[in-house]
C-alpha cells in the first residue's frame, strides 16, 4: 500500500509539473461532433498560463495556442480501424488548426514493452492505449495522469457504462478512458442454426450437442469439413484470456483477493478442474473442432468461420469485423448468444475494456482529453462500430448499435451478467499457466490430473508472490 501511495505521490508530482508547463489562453470554440459533451472539461485549478477556461467552465481548445500531441493507439495499424481513426484525427485537426495530432503505430502485442521503454526513456506519447490487464502497473509507474476523470468531466463520465468505469479504475483512480467494450459472447452461424432447428445453447452440454449436430462432411469425402465450433488454443494472452472467461462459466475465479493484501488462486478448485477438463474435451477430443487446436489462434479461428469451416466461437464483438472482412457474404448470417454455463452456474461472462489514457508528461492534457471525447462521441462510436464491429462503452452509442444490428443481441444480453476481473498484477502469469496446462495435455499427452496439479502449484506460487 505504501508503494502504491509512493507511486501516486510521484504521479501527482509529474502531473503538477505537466500542469505548470501547460499553455493555454481564452476563447470559445465548439466541438463539431458532440458540441454539448466535448466542451465540459475544466481547466486545471492551478494553471498559471492564461485562462484556457471559458465562462461556462469548458476548455477552449482553439485558444490553447499551438499544440502537438503524439497519439499512440494500437488500432491505428489495423486495416479496418486505422484509416477510420486517421480520418477522425484529420477532422479534429481541421476543426482546430492549432492542434497537430501525430499518429504513432504500435501493435497491441508490443504495447506494454513499448510503453515500458518509453517510460524509462521519458518519451511517453501524450495519448496511448491502455487496458485493464496493465492498468495497475500503469498507475504504479505513474505513466498516466491521475486526474483523467476530472479532465473528461462528470457529464462525459455519466455517459459511459458503469462496468467500464469500474474496469478502468484502480484504487479509486481512473487510469484510462474506456473505449472498446470487450464483453465476451458466443458468435454463431445464425443461418445454420435455423436450418438445423437448433436453439441457442444455455449450458455447455447443450453447446456440445449443438456442435456435434453442426459438424458435417459437406463434400462427402469421408471427413468432416465444417465443424461445430472452433476454440483458440495457442499459448498467448488472446487464447488464454478466453479460457479465463470459459473458467468463469464453470464458477471458477482465477484469483480471489482476500481483502488483506493477499490473494488465493482458484486453480486448485474443483471448478477449475471441471473447466479445464471440459475445455480440453470440447476443443480437442470430441471431434467438433478443426484439427490443430493448439495452433489455432484468434485470427485462425475467425478465418475458419469466415471460410465456412466452423460455426461457433466465443470472443468480443470485434470478431464479427474479422469475419466480415474475410468474407463479406457472412453479413446477415452471423448472430451471437451469451456464454453457455456449467450446470448450476448462473449466466455469466467477462467484461474487459481497452481504452486510452493521457500520459503524466503530456503538456496539454486538456486538449488531449477534448480530442478523446471527440473521438468517442456517440456519432464517432457508432461510426467506429461500423468500421470495426467493436462495441463502444458509451451508453447511447451502445444502445443505438445493438438496436440496429441483431448480430450484437447476444453481446447486449451477455453484458447484463458481465463481471470484471480483480486488478491483479500476476494475471498474465496465471493465464499463461492455464495455456501451458492445456497444451501439455493435448500435445504432450500428460494426464489432466498431473497437468492440473502442476498448474495449481505454479498458480499458488504466483498468488503468493503478488501478496503483500
Amino acid at each position, binding site marked *: 500500500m505504501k*508503494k502504491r501511495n*509512493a*507511486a501516486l505521490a*510521484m504521479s501527482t508530482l509529474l502531473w503538477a509539473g505537466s500542469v505548470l508547463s501547460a499553455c493555454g489562453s481564452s476563447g470559445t470554440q465548439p466541438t463539431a461532433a458532440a458540441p454539448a459533451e466535448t466542451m465540459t472539461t475544466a481547466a486545471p485549478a492551478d494553471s498559471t498560463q492564461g485562462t484556457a477556461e471559458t465562462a461556462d467552465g469548458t476548455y477552449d481548445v482553439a485558444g490553447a495556442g499551438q499544440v502537438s500531441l503524439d497519439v499512440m493507439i494500437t488500432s491505428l495499424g489495423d486495416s479496418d480501424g486505422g484509416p477510420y481513426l486517421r480520418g477522425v484525427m484529420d477532422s479534429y485537426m481541421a476543426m482546430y488548426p492549432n492542434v497537430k495530432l501525430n499518429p504513432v503505430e504500435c501493435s497491441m502485442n508490443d504495447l*506494454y*514493452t513499448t510503453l*515500458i521503454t518509453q*517510460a*524509462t526513456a521519458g518519451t511517453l506519447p501524450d495519448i496511448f492505449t491502455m487496458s485493464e490487464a496493465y492498468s495497475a*502497473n500503469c498507475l*504504479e*509507474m*505513474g*505513466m498516466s495522469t491521475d486526474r483523467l476523470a476530472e479532465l473528461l468531466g462528470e457529464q462525459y463520465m455519466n455517459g459511459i457504462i458503469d462496468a467500464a468505469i469500474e474496469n478502468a479504475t484502480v484504487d479509486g483512480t481512473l487510469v484510462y478512458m474506456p473505449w472498446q467494450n470487450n464483453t465476451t459472447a458466443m458468435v454463431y452461424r445464425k443461418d445454420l442454426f435455423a436450418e438445423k432447428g437448433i436453439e441457442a445453447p444455455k449450458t455447455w452440454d447443450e453447446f456440445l450437442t449443438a456442435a456435434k449436430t453442426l459438424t458435417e462432411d459437406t463434400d462427402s469425402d469421408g*471427413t468432416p469439413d465444417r465443424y461445430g465450433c472452433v476454440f483458440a488454443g*495457442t*499459448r*498467448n*494472452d488472446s487464447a488464454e484470456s478466453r479460457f479465463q472467461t470459459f473458467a468463469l462459466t464453470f464458477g471458477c475465479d482465477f484469483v480471489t483477493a482476500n481483502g488483506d493484501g493477499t490473494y488465493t488462486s482458484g486453480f486448485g478448485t474443483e471448478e477449475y478442474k471441471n473447466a479445464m477438463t471440459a475445455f480440453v474435451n470440447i476443443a480437442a477430443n470430441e471431434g467438433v473442432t*478443426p*484439427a*490443430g*487446436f*493448439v*495452433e*489455432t489462434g484468434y485470427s*485462425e479461428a475467425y478465418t*475458419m468461420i469466415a471460410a465456412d*469451416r466452423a460455426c461457433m466461437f466465443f470472443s468480443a464483438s470485434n470478431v464479427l469485423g474479422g469475419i466480415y472482412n474475410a468474407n463479406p457474404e457472412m453479413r446477415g448470417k452471423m448472430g451471437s448468444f451469451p456464454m453457455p454455463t456449467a450446470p448450476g452456474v448462473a449466466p455469466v461472462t467477462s467484461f474487459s475494456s481497452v481504452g486510452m489514457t493521457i500520459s503524466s508528461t503530456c503538456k496539454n492534457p486538456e486538449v488531449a482529453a477534448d480530442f478523446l471525447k471527440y473521438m468517442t462521441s456517440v456519432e464517432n462510436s457508432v461510426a467506429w462500430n461500423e468500421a470495426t464491429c467493436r462495441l463502444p462503452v458509451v451508453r447511447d452509442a451502445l444502445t443505438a448499435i445493438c438496436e440496429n444490428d441483431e448480430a450484437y443481441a447476444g453481446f447486449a444480453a451477455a453484458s447484463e451478467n458481465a463481471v470484471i476481473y480483480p486488478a491483479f*498484477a*500476476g494475471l*498474465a*502469469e496465471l493465464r*499463461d499457466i492455464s*495455456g*501451458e496446462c492445456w*497444451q*501439455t495435455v*493435448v*500435445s*504432450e*499427452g*500428460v494426464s489432466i490430473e498431473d497437468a492440473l496439479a502442476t498448474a495449481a502449484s505454479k498458480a499458488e506460487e504466483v498468488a503468493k508472490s503478488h501478496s503483500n
Partner: protein
Amino acid sequence: MKEKSREARNYRLKSAFTPYGFILPASLTILLLVVYPILYGVYISFFDTNLVNKWNFVGLRYYLRALTDSSFLHSLWKTMVFTVTVVGGHFLFGFIFASILNLKIKFRTLFRGILILPWLFPDVVIAYLFKWILNTQGGIINALLMHYHVVRVPVGWLSTSATALPCVILVSIWKGYPLVMVQILAGIQTVSTEMYEAAKIDGANAWQRFCYITIPALKPILTTILILDTVWVFKQFTLIWLMTSGGPGSSTMVSAIEIYKNAFSYFKYGLASAQSVYVLVICYLIGVVFRRLLRDD
C-alpha cells in the same frame, strides 16, 4: 637547443596520444552500445524493479531463484539440444554444399545464388512461411501427405510435442547453413591445389585429403564460425517465437523465450536480467572452450 627539446617533447606527446584519438570514437561507441547495456542489465538483476519508479534491492535473490527454477533449467536444456543440433546441421550442410560448389560443375553460379537464398530471407518471413507450410489445417505438407494417402488425418507438426522441436530445428538449419557454406567455400578456395595434387601423388584418398589438408587449412575459419554460430543459435529467439511461441506446452521453450516472457509478459525484469546474465556467462564460456579446444598448435 631549448626550442628543439620542446619540439621533441611535443612530438613525443603527440605521438603518444594520437593513437588514443584514433581509437576513441570506436571505444566510446563500444562503451555506450555494448558495455553500458551489459552493465545496466547486470545492475537490474539485483533489483525488484518496474524500471521506472520501483527499485527494491534484492541482492542475489534472483540468481539463486534462477538456479532452482525448473522452467529456466528446462529452457536451458532445450537450448542446449537446439544449439547442438542446429550448429551441427549448419556445419554438415555447409560442408556438403561448399564442397559441391567448389567442384567445376555447370551452372555453379546459379546454384551458389540459390543455395544462399535462405540466408537472405528475414527470420520473420521464414517463420511465417514454414508456419503455413507445416500448418495442420491447409498446410501444403499435410495436403500432400493426405493426397498421396500417407496419412489419413493431418499431422500437427507444430502442435505436437514430438514434432515441434525437430521442425523448428530443421527450419533453423535451413535458414542458417548458407553462412557456414559461404565461409567454408571461401576457405576451401584459399587452399593451394598443389597440396591436393601432392597428396594425390602420395596416394591419399579423398577422405584423407579432406581430413589432413582441408580441415587443418580451414581450422581458423571453422573456429571463428563455430563460436559465432553457436552463440547466435544459443540466443535464437525470432524463428522459435514466431513459429511456436515456445509451445506446445514447453517443448520449444528455449532460454531466450523464457527470459523474454519473464521480462515482457510478467514484468519480472530483475529475474529476467539475472537469467540473461547466466546466458551471457554461458555464451562467453562457449567461446573460451571452443578457442581452447580448437587452438592451432
